[in-house]
């Protein structure tokens, strides 16, 4: 195997590694988005569909963060995360759709739940 495949943070230094393996693979999607919509306007049917795809992906990101079993959130039991999201949503609805109230409630529940149930 060649050395490039096994390049590590140590070989490149943290800033170059950030630019090559963090910034570029992330930014490429924004650039593609910019290129693709040259000349399209917000009312076009393609944009209506693209917006639906973006919204569905957003929901996907949320589900991933709540249900993920790896990464820094793994220390919080999945039951606590789902419960916090559900209770936060109930508070959001009860407070006449106040995002502040909902997010704060969810965060308090996740903190309490983590304190009580985390191994």
């Amino acid at each position, binding site marked *: 195997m060649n050395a490039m*495949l*096994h390049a590590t*943070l140590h070989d*490149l230094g*943290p800033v170059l590694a*950030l*630019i*090559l*393996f*963090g910034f570029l693979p*992330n*930014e*490429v*999607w*924004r*650039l*593609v*988005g*910019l290129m*693709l*919509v040259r000349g399209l*306007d*917000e009312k076009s049917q393609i*944009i*209506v*569909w*693209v*917006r*639906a*795809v*973006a*919204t*569905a*992906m*957003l*929901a*996907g*990101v*949320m*589900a*991933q*963060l709540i*249900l993920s079993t790896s*990464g*820094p*959130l793994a220390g*919080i039991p999945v039951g606590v995360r789902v419960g*916090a*999201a559900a209770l*936060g949503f109930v508070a*959001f609805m009860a407070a006449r*759709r106040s*995002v*502040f109230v*909902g*997010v704060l409630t*969810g*965060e308090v529940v*996740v*903190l309490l739940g983590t304190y009580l149930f985390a191994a």
Partner: protein
Amino acid sequence: MPTEPERPPAHVAFQVFLDGLMAAARSVFFYVLVGNYVGMGALAHEVGFTFWWMALSTLLVWAAPAQVILLSTLTTASLWEVALAVTLTSVRFLPMVASILPVMRHPGVRQRDLLLPMHLTAISVWVEGMRLLPLMPAERRVAFYNGLGTGLISGALIGGAIGFVLAAKLPPLLGAALLFFTPMAILMSSARNSRTLIDGLSFALGLVVGPIVAAQKIGLDLMWTGLIAGTMAYAVHRLREARRARTP
């Protein structure tokens, strides 16, 4: 009366930029980002990155899920694996940028004027931009969106700095709990903002399809979730429009 100028004069554009900053300060996402990035800053400190590296990663990457991946894998996994994981979570920027930029485009806007709005597009800025931009005249939208994005990215920079400095005093589980701000804010802002059937339906279907796709372990989860759930919602929307057109 002369025709309306296509580009607002500089002082107007600056005023609109400030309006955007103010809108960011009033947005729940500002506070959510501060909280979320406190968790991220603490994680950066724990893993051994410097204060400035953390700030640079926020400015350049400006995507919480990708930054979490960078922080938690950059020191351990191979860099190609890291790049692959980052690029898979960031697919969402393609449809986000592609749906928000046309809202800002009008005859006076050059392609290069859209580069900064493109880079500033992230979940929070997109959600707030989709809600607020249609409420204002088209020629103000670019400056407003730049203000909004700058304000929100500032919240992330402030949070990251606080987290980095406090890291030693912050229990790791509290740091993790702070990262939970993001999914909560996405959930509720989307529920609040979905005024049309297609918005609500795409989000609800995404919630259901996401975990199903993930369970299949076919990879590219987010892309498939977006394409399947988004297309289903769009199809329902078209069917309803067609039916409405037929009934007088």
